[in-house]
């Protein structure tokens, strides 16, 4: 017994005692093979998954290393069976390989004929395969490369892809290190990706994902398609590329809702790719518009499901995924692994720590007691109307206004789901409301005024906050609805809320009607935010209304 900071559980979660003296050292080591699941204040939870272990394999760690780390830092004896399981799982990666055969083209190869026989028995896999050439080689139908990798992963035999890539149309791109230099880990990440062929580079926010992307483009020296989450991100990418590389403005195109430019380097949004006209994806031609040499996926963890399907068809092109986390809310981590590629590089934690650390916001749940009349109304409302009713009550509006007034000297954002409610709030507070129908130009103007501090308070709808990045605020007040998916919510909060000038952390209020479905949602939110390390407390609306 070593009295270390780790406790390995039988369900393959790993608990890390963050107050332990060895916690930081240990955290760096386990991040390579286990996924961080929760990070509340005392004990962080990591999980060992086959994917995490295979990712570690792809990034060059072996089972011995993983087991050593667990044994060294574990507080209690680790069950032998779990260690055996880890070794067994990791040994599965790479036993099957996809290779380009000089005569037969794409082939599935394994030095273990038994494994080959096992997978070819699979009902889903058999139709993707052609003739067996010898004991160790089977022809794969061209075009099935992506689907085969997906299916093999599901069977638990992830294949390593050595089948190579097309070069694509050459295009001169080089880094332009003028007044800045690429950081060591960024260079290593780009190289790690380049040698691996395709895959994902995991970088925390602020670690310079764009530069890794640019460095990868400089390796490829070919036409590049960059897929990003939204128009703002697209413009950020363009600005960065202009600054960091030899590319000129006319070499970079934007392919979004408003513009449809196709240039040697084209930046497209996920939204435009997944837009359907009469049930057909209208912009898929983009993938074939140019003989792309490299495709970059920004924020892979948010990649919409349909894009995976397109990605399965373009397995002969190099693909780079960039993300801060491999965890996906929808559980499609396996698709990222098989279709984009395994993790190619992990940034050492030390580097990120030097980046500084933004204190997560202080979350306050304001419990509002409905009036008797409102409660009666709620009780008799139809099931589907209840949420709307309880989140738009008169009492709630009063509390929202009281809060806004209380913080009237700070940058306040009021966020909600129901337009009537937002309009009423805007009117009463005398502040502008941004909603789905507000033109982009007007939005940008308002945001600029807000950023400059000329407007202190804005009311935004949920629809509005999807399409464009919100400016920084010190106070956010959520009156109804959720702020994106749970994961997105935590991330957005971290991004929107900056610490106040005096160093106090920013604050996020969510208004919740007591004893209604609103409270059930709030409980989920509390759990998730606390798991992400946000401080969370509950206050009573009366305290807001009476204090001033």
């Amino acid at each position, binding site marked *: *017994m070593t009295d270390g900071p780790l*406790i*390995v*559980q*039988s*369900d393959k*979660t790993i*608990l890390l*005692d963050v107050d332990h003296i060895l916690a930081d050292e240990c955290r760096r080591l386990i991040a390579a093979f286990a996924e961080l699941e*929760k990070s*509340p*204040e*005392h*004990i962080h*939870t990591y999980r060992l998954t086959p994917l995490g272990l295979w990712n570690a394999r792809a990034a060059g760690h072996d089972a011995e290393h993983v087991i050593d780390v667990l044994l060294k830092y*574990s*507080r*209690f*004896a*680790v*069950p*032998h069976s779990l260690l055996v399981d880890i070794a067994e799982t990791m040994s599965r990666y790479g036993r099957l390989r996809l290779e380009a055969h000089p005569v037969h083209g794409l082939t599935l190869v394994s030095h273990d004929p038994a494994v080959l026989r096992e997978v070819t028995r699979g009902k889903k896999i058999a139709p993707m395969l052609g003739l067996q050439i010898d004991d160790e080689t089977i022809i794969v139908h061209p075009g099935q490369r992506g689907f085969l990798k997906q299916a093999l992963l599901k069977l638990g035999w992830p294949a390593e892809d050595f089948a190579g890539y097309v070069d694509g149309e050459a295009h001169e791109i080089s880094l332009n290190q003028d007044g800045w230099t690429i950081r060591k880990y960024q260079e290593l990440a780009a190289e790690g990706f380049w040698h691996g062929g395709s895959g994902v580079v995991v970088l925390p926010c602020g670690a310079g994902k764009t530069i890794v992307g640019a460095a990868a483009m400089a390796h490829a020296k070919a036409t590049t398609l960059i897929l990003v989450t939204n128009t703002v991100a697209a413009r950020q990418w363009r600005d960065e590329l202009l600054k960091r590389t030899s590319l000129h403005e006319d070499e970079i195109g934007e392919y979004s809702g408003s513009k449809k430019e196709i240039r040697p380097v084209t930046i497209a949004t996920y939204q435009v790719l997944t837009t359907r006209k009469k049930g057909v994806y209208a912009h898929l031609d983009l993938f074939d518009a140019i003989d792309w040499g490299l495709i970059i996926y920004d924020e892979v963890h948010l990649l919409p499901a349909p894009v995976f399907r397109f990605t399965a068809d373009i397995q002969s092109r190099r693909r780079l995924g960039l993300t801060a986390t491999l965890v996906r809310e929808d559980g499609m981590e396996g698709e990222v692994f098989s279709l984009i590629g395994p993790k190619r590089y992990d940034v050492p934690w030390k580097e990120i720590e030097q980046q500084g650390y933004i204190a997560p916001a202080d979350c306050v*749940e304001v*419990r509002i007691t409905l009036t008797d009349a409102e409660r009666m109304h709620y009780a008799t409302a139809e099931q589907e109307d209840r949420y709307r009713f309880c989140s738009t009550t008169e009492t709630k509006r009063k509390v929202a206004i009281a809060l806004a007034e209380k913080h009237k000297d700070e940058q306040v954002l009021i966020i909600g789901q129901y337009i009537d409610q937002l309009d009423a709030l805007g009117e009463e507070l005398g502040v502008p409301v941004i909603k789905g129908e507000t033109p982009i130009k007007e939005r940008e103007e308002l945001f600029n005024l807000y950023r400059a501090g000329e407007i202190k308070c804005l009311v935004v709808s949920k629809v509005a906050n999807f399409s464009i990045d919100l400016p920084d605020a010190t106070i956010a007040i959520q009156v109804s609805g959720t702020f994106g998916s749970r994961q997105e919510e935590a991330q957005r909060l971290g991004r929107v809320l900056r610490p106040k000038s005096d160093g106090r952390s920013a604050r996020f209020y969510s208004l919740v009607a007591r*004893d209604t479905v609103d*409270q059930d949602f709030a*409980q989920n939110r*509390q*759990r*998730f935010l*606390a*798991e992400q390390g*946000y*401080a*969370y*407390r*509950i206050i009573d609306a009366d305290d807001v209304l009476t204090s001033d």
Partner: protein
Amino acid sequence: MSSSFADSLRSRSDEEIARLFQARPDLLSPVPSDLSALAARASSMPSILRARDTLNKFQFDLLTAACSLQDPFTQLDLLRITDKSAKSTLALLIERALIYADGEKFRIPTNVRTLIGEHPAGLGPHSTKKINLALLEEAPKGAIELLNKMVWGPPRGQVADVKKANPTITWLLENNFLIAQDSQTLLLPREVGMHLRGGKVFKELIFEAPSVVGVTRKKKAVDLAAIANISTFIRWAEELAHNWSDEPPSALKSGGLGVRDLKRTSEHLGVDETCAAFVAEILYLGGLIVIDTDDQILPTNAFDLWLTKSAEDRWHALVTLWLETSRVAGLIGKGDNKSVAALGPELDRSGISALKKSVLALLIATPEIDPELGSLQERLKFDMPTRANNDYVSWILREAEWLGITGQGAISSFGIALMNDADLGVEAALPKPVDHILIQADNSAIAPGPLTLEIANEMGTIADIESRGGATVYRFTEGSIRRALDHGKTGDGIKDFLKRTSKTPVPQPLEYLINDVAKRHGRLRVGHASSYIRCEDEGLIQQITHDKNLEDLRLRKLAPQVLISDVEINELIAGLREAGYLPAVENATGILISAPEVRRAKSRPRPPRVLSENSTPSETLISSAVRALRAGEKASAHKPREVPRTTANETLDLLNQYIQEQTSLTIGYADSNGGVSNRLIDPLSISLGTLIARDHATGEIAQFRIPRITGVSQAESAK
């Protein structure tokens, strides 16, 4: 012949007899009255079977080789067909009375020969004719090949018809290299077989036990792994019992645990089904769970007592049961057509405990080795050829690892201490129980080690367990707090407990959660009532509540206009009427029921079955009845003549004789109550202490236990 076996025992010294008892302790119970009795018992089949089970492969092979010789044989005869090194082993077999000395020579008791069989080591019968082995040199083409097929057994071949066999076979038969057993079966005589085997009975004789090989482990790592296994096993046991207390599985009609319940339990424990079944079996052995009278499988009071013991004692209690039990948990889920159920009646196998101890002894003899399964199985096949079963050995290893007797496959110091009855040292090696938890803002709590029983119980009530292992992760939810309140806790009580137990401050949202649930808990009340009284006149209700005559109706006031009662509606009405009130009955919708209800049974019609007339008896029935009558007549004809009593040895000799003469016999046969009846039989054969004969009374082949045969005589008609 058998008297000479008794003679050989008589010539033994006291010391030699003592050694015989030591090697074959079953001869001691009960203590035989004299040496003849000892001889009879030592040469009885059950005792010989037991003696055989104690032989290792080499000893058994040597006994087999000896059986291939004709009585009497010399030591040299035996060594010639085996190996020089067999000398000491021969002495051992003599000591155990499996071979006995007759002057300078040796003999083998009949039952030992019966046990080894007609064809020891696959050798055919002795030839009665002279065989000129030199002739084999001139054998026609293919003859040697043909013989070689039979050399290593079975020494038997089939042809369509011996008389029309091909010339090679005919030549072999003519020269006595083959014997025709009947018109289709050919046998290879023992002399020819031995000649073709090169004079040795066995292709290769293994003299020494094969050594156990495996991976070397570090002692410290082994003990660490073992302690992890021990704490895990104790946790599984507790978990399973708690889980079954919440949702007791029902035992199958045929006894035991159903497959679906097993699957559910294995999912709950997070282990595979074989392991879950094993845990259940061990709890069952210890009486910690029981199949209750209503077929529910539930933890017992013994479980609660067990929980209060130290971890070491808890482990020791379970692991010693495992060592002694004859139940084989590995068989669960196996079976040809129907899978064998855990806790069911089909799991007992004799000798498993001895096998377990042998396996563990081998592990102790090879410390710090995680043995290769194959090599261990090999070794056990040598040590106990009749007992070792490869499946059982692999199950024993698996179970020893689950129990923590081994760690990383090698014997742990706890396992060694267990087998040596030494101080186990488990308690000191187990992680110390912790008496605190850490509560986090996401409404989870972590016990960073095994909790003390009291806190574990409390936490188990107020929170759900999310993950187990070295630590326990709990989650507080609305449901878990409600459960605690249902158990009689109060909101403040829960908060106090958490404040006392948590090393970190109780997060404010958790206090809110507890307050919220406590506030709402019990606001709605639910209860039983059988009937009610409703009346708009509150005064009348008041009057009824105070009416002394109605006290028997146990009326309770729920609201100013409503009373309820536990008594049935008819009784209530009768009571009210008797007291002078005028109640009317209403139905569920409040409508008065004026006329008495026409009553109908609720169950479906189930008319009684019509018994059929007697059917005509079948022909077989009639014929067997007639046969029984005739046999009865025949037997009664013999009745006046008492069958003379014979001793067991005489009986055996007589029976052997009559079997050869094939005559009908009358025997006196004692039933299980000691009553003797005469039976008219045709004896067929004797095996394993049982006479197999055709019983005239039934016309069927029946078995008669020889000790129960009081006397034998030739049947009247046969004389």
